[in-house]
Every structure is written in structure tokens, then in C-alpha cells.
């Protein structure tokens, strides 16, 4: 695939041009907060390419914290009384500038949930398909980055249409897909970097990957049975500090669980899809009051088992984590998924027993 060279002097001009064909999203510093978020960029706004990881992941571009799925009226005089209508949505092309490679890889994991052979979530899928992902390679990974252990990495190309690499005065743009080529054209990125560009990317990639010190392994998790890990004796200790706040699930690029809620004002209403979290007791409570995951330990176990075991077994394509480290950084009580993964992976008691044999 082609590698282009963009002089940083021409960067703003290119983005301005791309604005004509795409709705642009990028990291923006949040005023007085000391962190950045992915936001839709106004006509003159530029993505902050120096930002480290955004506080929340960019998953909200296809999976907003709240989204109207349908609208309705309860007015009995209306012909459409109590009949759900899907509102018009704008799925014009959008480009996500400066997304980190592992955050883009996360979209591929979430896609497994929302785009299945039997059912397709049109809200997530339509938004996702409207996106062109212009990723920015991570030259200096943070101490919490363990993305190389999760099949992703600081220069991972999976899920991206263009990989940008910051070389100081230039960006190198590796065009990965037709969508990426179309974006490059709209931004008038034309200068080819040739083999020298590819070599430079390879060098920077090797250097970035070498800087990553955090790793996780899940080979042994893969070999163990679900029931063996589920019934393991370490969960109480793992879960003790947790306050079930759900921050980990909100900041996570791969957590997709949601709720459906109706909101009505007078006779007009909307059915909303909102973020939900396995950390909340309400997530699973039955009408009778019975709750299959009524305790904190059960909920913490669900989160880690889902990410590190159920997903692994279900799709046989790695864990449901891209190693961005957000949950570790944001957890108010320092629960560290790397540590939990390690505990699960080094667990061996009763490795091949199941409930039946006990």
C-alpha cells in the first residue's frame, strides 16, 4: 500500500479540504479539565494531534451514550398512535482523525456484537460504515499500554483506513483501504514517500513496540473451562476494592452493553438506547426482585469473565480488550485488568473439571 508524505505546514490546509467531503471528528482538549475527548469538529477546528489517549474512548462515535432509536406519539387522535417510527439519521461520510490504532481495533471487536449473521444493529452499523478511520500511530506508548499483548499495538493497522505516523516535521500516511485513498484524495495528500517512508514507519513501529513494558497472557485462560474459572476462589479478593461505579465500562472502547429506555414528554416520546454497565445491580434484576448477579463479586466476575473468557471462547479470536489502559487509569480504587488477567491465567486448580464431574 502507498505511503504519502504530508508536510505539517500543509496539514491544516488538507484538513480544511477534507471538511468539505466529511464530517470530521478528532481529539479536542476539554476546557479546564486536563483531558481530551473525541468530538465533532467545527468548520475551523483542528484535531489535537498531540493529545494522549482521550479520557473516554471514541466508541461513542458509533455508540453514543444516548441515542434515539425510535419516536412515537401516544395521542389517540393520531393515525400513528403507539406506532414506533425510526427517525431520519444522518449517516453522511465522517472521518475520525487521530484515532489511536488500538481504539480503531476495538471497533472490530464491537462489530462482532452488533453485526451478526442473524441480526444487525442498524444504529451502530450504519454509523460505523459511514466512518473513515484516519489513525495516528503511538510513537511513545504510555506505561499502561499493553496493546501488543491483545493482538493490537501502537502501529496496528487493523480497523484503520489510513495510518498516520508523526515523524517530527511530517506525517507519513500509509493508505490501507480504498476508503483511506478517497480521504487522502479529498485532503489533497499526494506526495509519495516511497520506500524510505515505509522504512521509517517500520523503524518507528519497532521502537514503539520495544517501549511497551506491560504485557498480559491468556494462553492458560484459553485452556481452562468456563466453570473452573467461574468457580475459582480468587474472585472475592479481586472484587474487594471495587465500588461498582461502572467507570471502567464507560471508558472502555470495547464495552458495548446498553439499556433501552422510553422517555415521554406529554404525548411525544422516544425510545432511547443508552449506555449500561454490568457493574450495576439493575442490569440483571428480575421483576420478582431476584437478581442472578446481585452481589458485587458476581458483577466483577462477570466483567472480567466476559472480557477475558466468554468472548475468547465465543469468537475464538482473542480477548475483548485492546490494551489501551483506560480502565486502569480511571479506576478510583486501582483495580488493574492486567493483574486480574494474570491471576486468571495462572490459576490451575481443577483445570479440567466442570460442574457435572464435581
Amino acid at each position: 500500500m502507498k505511503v504519502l508524505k504530508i508536510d505539517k505546514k500543509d496539514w491544516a490546509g488538507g484538513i480544511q479540504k477534507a471538511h468539505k467531503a466529511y464530517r470530521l471528528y478528532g481529539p479536542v482538549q476539554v476546557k479546564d479539565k486536563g483531558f481530551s475527548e473525541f468530538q465533532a469538529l467545527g468548520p475551523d477546528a483542528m484535531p489535537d494531534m498531540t493529545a494522549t489517549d482521550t479520557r473516554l474512548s471514541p466508541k461513542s462515535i458509533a455508540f453514543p451514550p444516548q441515542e434515539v432509536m425510535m419516536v412515537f406519539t401516544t395521542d389517540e387522535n393520531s393515525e400513528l398512535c403507539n406506532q414506533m417510527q425510526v427517525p431520519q439519521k444522518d449517516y453522511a461520510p465522517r472521518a475520525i482523525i487521530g484515532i489511536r490504532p488500538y481504539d480503531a481495533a476495538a471497533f472490530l471487536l464491537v462489530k462482532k456484537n452488533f453485526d451478526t449473521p442473524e441480526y444487525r444493529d442498524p444504529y451502530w452499523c450504519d454509523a460505523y460504515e459511514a466512518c473513515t478511520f484516519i489513525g495516528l500511530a503511538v510513537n511513545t506508548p504510555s506505561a499502561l499500554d499493553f496493546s501488543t499483548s491483545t493482538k493490537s499495538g501502537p502501529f496496528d493497522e487493523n480497523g484503520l483506513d489510513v495510518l498516520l505516523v508523526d515523524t517530527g516535521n511530517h506525517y507519513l500516511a500509509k493508505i490501507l483501504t480504498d476508503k483511506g485513498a478517497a480521504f487522502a484524495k479529498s485532503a489533497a495528500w499526494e506526495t509519495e514517500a516511497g520506500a524510505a517512508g515505509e522504512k521509517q514507519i517500520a523503524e518507528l513501529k519497532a521502537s514503539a513496540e520495544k517501549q511497551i513494558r506491560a504485557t498480559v497472557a491468556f494462553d492458560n485462560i484459553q485452556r481452562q473451562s468456563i466453570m473452573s474459572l467461574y468457580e475459582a476462589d480468587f474472585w472475592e479478593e479481586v472484587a474487594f476494592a471495587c465500588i461498582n461505579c461502572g467507570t471502567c465500562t464507560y471508558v472502555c472502547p470495547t464495552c458495548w452493553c446498553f439499556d433501552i429506555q422510553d422517555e415521554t414528554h406529554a404525548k411525544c416520546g422516544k425510545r432511547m438506547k443508552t449506555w449500561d454497565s454490568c457493574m450495576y445491580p439493575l442490569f440483571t434484576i428480575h421483576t420478582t426482585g431476584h437478581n442472578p448477579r446481585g452481589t458485587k463479586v458476581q458483577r466483577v466476575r462477570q466483567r472480567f469473565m466476559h472480557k477475558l473468557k466468554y468472548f475468547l471462547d465465543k469468537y475464538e479470536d482473542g480477548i475483548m480488550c485492546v490494551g489501551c489502559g483506560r480502565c486502569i487509569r480511571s479506576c478510583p480504587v486501582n483495580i488493574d485488568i492486567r493483574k486480574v488477567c494474570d491471576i486468571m491465567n495462572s490459576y490451575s486448580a481443577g483445570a479440567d473439571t466442570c460442574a457435572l464431574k464435581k
Partner: protein
Amino acid sequence: MSAYTDKIKKIAGRLLQECRVDMIIGFRKGSLPMMNEPCFIKNPADVDKLVWDSNCGINLANYVTDRKEKIGIIAKGCDSRNLVTHIIENKIKREQLYIIGIPCQGMIDRRKIAAQFQQEIETVGEQGDKITIAGGGASQTLTKADVIQENCAVCIHRNPVIYDELAAELVEEQKDVDRYAEVRQVEAMTPAQKWQFFEELLAPCVRCYACRNACPLCFCPTCFVDESRPQWVGKTLDPIDTRTFHFLRAYHCAGRCTDCGACQRACPVNINMRAFTKKLEKDAFELYGWEAGLSLDVRPPLDTFKPNDPEDFIK
């Protein structure tokens, strides 16, 4: 600080060995700089995991709610006040607790420190009132007083108010601190300014309820925001629902809040919800001379009635 840690280990080991308690609740070293993790220890051989330093801001009273065991608990000033509140509100019995009191010297605010350092922080050390941070080949020394949590800076109850044993000599309480400067700033605003202030304050809220869950006072079996029959509050990010949550939660803490700062620490989007609770703390102090969690023998102002109450509505 290592003297504190040594003493804590010694006390914890003795309590477990003598079977005075079933478990110790304290802190173990975290996996990140400036973070320690609440933990329990049941085996005397494991007491070496316990640590104490200026990164133990999490309120441990939150971890004893409705527990049945005999617990040895590490408690700094605010934790001890919340334990008192817990005992008064029947969330734990005094006899269940062996309180290892920690005279507190203030907890550092990791976000303040991170904001002052360009590189990613790799290590943080403390030596008396100096904090040394290092990372990315650079290092910097800060004065602890400049980077402690806002609630610690105005704290006048650093010493535990209730304990069975102390892990160190009592410290001198801070005097002449202006506890309510921020509240007065808001009080001085016009209604329109206040409206805007609170609107901006709550705008980033994602309704994750981390503030509520971190708060040792928020132990209702079903919080009003989670109630579905009837559903008092909507579940989306509608600003009215978000405000309703924060206002009601703050009022629910009136006369109970010890300003431990747990809510603000836990917030993933850096909302200072102490702007609400501090105002109610001030009102409780000025109207009733009340500070929460100082005594096991006095009922809090909002669950007592006096026949000579000056207000008409209550008669």
C-alpha cells in the same frame, strides 16, 4: 510514612494472630503511582502487603457496610468520622470494629500532580513535606501542601475521632483554615450566575454514579435513581435528570457528609460535587453547630426533633 506502615503491620499481625478480628481492612500498594488499593487481610502471614502513605485517600468506611465479621480497620480522620456515622445509622456495630487510628497528614491529589508534570509519571516518592515525581527522564520536587486534596487542605479533623489503638502520635490539627471560602463565592453569586455555575459544573456528567458508589453514606439498598416503580428519574443524559440526581444526592448527605472527598476523587470526568456537599456541611454547622461523625452519643440534626424548634412548619 514507613513508620506508619511498620506500626500498622505490627498491630494487624497481632490482631489476626490473637484472633481479635477476622480480617483487617487496609491498603495495599497499587499498580500505578499515587494509587493504593483497598484490600482485606485474613492471614497474619499476609500483613506485609499493608501500606500507608499519602495515597490512601479512599474512605474505608465504605467497605464495612453491613459486614458480619469482626474487622480491624485502618482509619484516618475522615474514615473514623464515617465509621461513627455508620455505627449511628446501624450499618455496622461498634463491637465488630477494632479501629486502628491513623493521624492523617493529608492525601495527595494525583490529578493536581499529573497536571503539573509534562511527562507520564513513573514514580512518586515522599519525604516529609516534599513530593518527588519522576518520569520520562525528568523529575520534579513539589511541596506536599500545594498538591494535597482540596478537602484535606481545609480539614480540621485529621486525627481519628474514635479508635482502639493509634498507629502514630496524634498530629496537630490545622487551625485558622478557611473551610468555606468556595461556598461563599457561590453564595455571593446572583441567581443567574449560580444557575450557570451549576450548569457548567454538571455538564460533563456521564451518570456513571461513581460519586455515589464511592460515598460511604450512599448505602441505600435501592438508590432513588435506580428505582423503577415509580421511576423518579430518567436514565438518559437529560440535564434535568442529571441535576436531579446530584441535588438530591447532596441533600441526602446533609448533616452526614464528612467532606472526605471520596466523590470527587472517584469522578471520571473531574466534577467537583463537593460544591454541593460543602454548602450543606456549612449550613449544618452554622444552623445547628453540627459536624458529622464526631460523637456516638449525639443524634444527627436531621433525625432529631426538639419541641422548642423555632420553625413553624414542624409543629
